[in-house]
């Protein structure tokens, strides 16, 4: 299991090693038949994965009358800009509000969660103190506790202190990432040499300062991974905001679109907003993935990871 956890950031290094060997190893060449069948399988499934998104994009460019009357997989009049304008001005721009909420919940939450997990994982890897193993085992148990199982008890607790239906009721529970601690510990153990910490000590740097100036840089690939996982987990979390929030202006975009979609039968005009809203809502995540992919590649070289 550990190897799996380790792999995302080392993928780069592993690929680098593989590339150095002769591209075509000696031995039998692959038959044309197996090449063609492999490409066919991949091509068919590319359609499976991408056609729904293509359909959503095309649907987002159509006016509501053309949505049902024209070819669903090809463009009619290109109304994308008008649709977006309608969406963001509908009901005083509540959709934009939802997007900003999602970015605040997921971006802010994942950032803080990553820093906290990095500090705790680093301490678990680099310092000896009583209760260290117990703490680590409890945190590992936390990895197996699904977020949905916590939503209802969290609601009950927050309602005891009258904090349901607030920004904090969704934001605060998102700051905890046991998986992040696990990953940070493995990385810190593997990538931050004790000699480096000793050297910093000899230079008179404090422990905390050493962590933030030296160790964090060496742990960056792992921390990017933790950030990404936590960002996705918060962005996709549905149960917690569903039970916590009543006030529409606090909704993340997933909950808002869900609410609109449940009302389509009563308010048919919402259908168009749901479609264009769904299309726009997946763009930030795709951008985050692409940016972080590049970050992995341009990030610290393989040498500093291992």
């Amino acid at each position, binding site marked *: 299991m550990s190897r*799996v956890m380790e792999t995302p950031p080392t993928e780069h290094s592993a690929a680098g090693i593989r590339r150095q060997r002769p591209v075509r190893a000696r*031995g039998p060449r692959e038959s044309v038949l197996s090449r063609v069948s492999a490409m066919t399988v991949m091509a068919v499934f590319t359609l499976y994965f991408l056609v729904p998104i293509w359909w959503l994009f095309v649907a987002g460019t159509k006016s509501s009358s053309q949505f049902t009357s024209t070819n669903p997989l090809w463009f009619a009049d290109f109304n994308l800009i008008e649709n977006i304008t309608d969406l963001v001005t509908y009901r005083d721009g509540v959709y934009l509000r939802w997007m900003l909420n999602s970015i605040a919940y997921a971006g802010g939450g994942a950032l803080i969660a990553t820093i906290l997990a990095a500090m705790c994982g680093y301490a678990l890897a680099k*310092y000896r103190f009583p209760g260290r193993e117990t703490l680590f*085992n409890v945190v590992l148990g936390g990895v197996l506790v699904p977020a949905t199982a916590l939503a209802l008890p969290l609601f009950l607790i927050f309602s005891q202190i009258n904090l349901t239906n607030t920004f904090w009721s969704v934001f605060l529970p998102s700051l905890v990432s046991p998986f992040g601690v696990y990953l940070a510990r*493995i990385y810190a153990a593997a990538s931050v040499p004790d000699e480096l910490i000793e050297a910093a000590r000899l230079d008179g740097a404090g422990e905390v300062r050493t962590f933030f100036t030296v160790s964090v840089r060496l742990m960056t690939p792992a921390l990017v991974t933790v950030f990404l996982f936590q960002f996705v987990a918060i962005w996709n979390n549905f149960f917690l905001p569903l039970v916590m929030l009543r006030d529409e202006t606090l909704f993340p975009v*997933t909950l808002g679109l869900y609410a609109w979609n449940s009302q389509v039968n009563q308010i048919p005009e919402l259908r168009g907003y749901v479609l264009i809203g769904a299309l726009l809502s997946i763009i930030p995540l795709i951008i985050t993935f692409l940016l972080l992919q590049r970050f992995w590649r341009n990030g610290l070289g393989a040498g500093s990871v291992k």
Partner: protein
Amino acid sequence: MSATVDLAPTVPRADAPPRPTKPRGRARVQHPLAIVIFVVPFGILFSLFYLVPIGYAIYQSLLVIEREGTFGEAREVFGGLTQYVLVFQNGPFWESIARVLTFGAVQVPIMLGLALLFALLLDSPLLRGKRFFRLAFFVPYAVPGVIAAIMWGFLYSPSLSPFSAVTSNINFLSADLVLWAIANVVTWVFVGYNMLIIYSSLLAIPAELYEAARLDGAGQLRIAWAIKIPLILPAITLTAIFSIIGTLQLLAEPQVFRSFSSAVTSTFTPNLTVYSTSSIPNFNLAAAFSVVLALATFILSFAFLKFTQRKDEK
């Protein structure tokens, strides 16, 4: 929490040899202030938002509401395992458990089988344009479950679907098929994610391991079966455990499908039962459902882990 015992040994022992220059034993803890600064912030939040809720859910599940007379004031009193008796007598809840288990028994093998196939193909010399396929297959993971369910809901609809030739003849939203319609949504979102986890662990296998096999004339299929798959079993186990947990916790997709199909009831999955019970509101029973569901999830993923480990030892 006993899985912790079992998971821990799989952690690489990178920390196992302690700094050799320092004597072990009851030596004074070095840098106590730094340790406190590093550990306490996470520790507090973890306690508040993981440990306390779990404890509170168990506590709530042991209470019953008592009223003096029919219209008397309600108060919570200790009821022992009363709520758990209600849970075990609750037919719809166990039907929903059976439903997600059926779902998992079919969907998880299909999803992981596809993910493994794609990862092996990406790792073989058979393909061109690997980077494109890797990205294309991963894109659905960027679509949140709620959004994916909304999108597929439209795609299944008899009138709005671009594939109306199919959907007007087969009603994917009918009581018979809606579970599998949801299974398709989950598969669509997660195949690429699992593919990447498996692919990453394939990349970590040193190439020398199958150079020899290739020289002996082994084909790609044989290399995959005899060398690669045994080496990446830990990765496959991991994806399987996360998939089992995800299946038992199904909520967003069926909740969205309720607006597309009346076949999805308010007790369709265990988590929907928890949600609808808490909206009554009957928090004590909902808490008991949550505890039973969390235990079931835990036992199942733990049993799976044990099962795969025993197979390794043979």
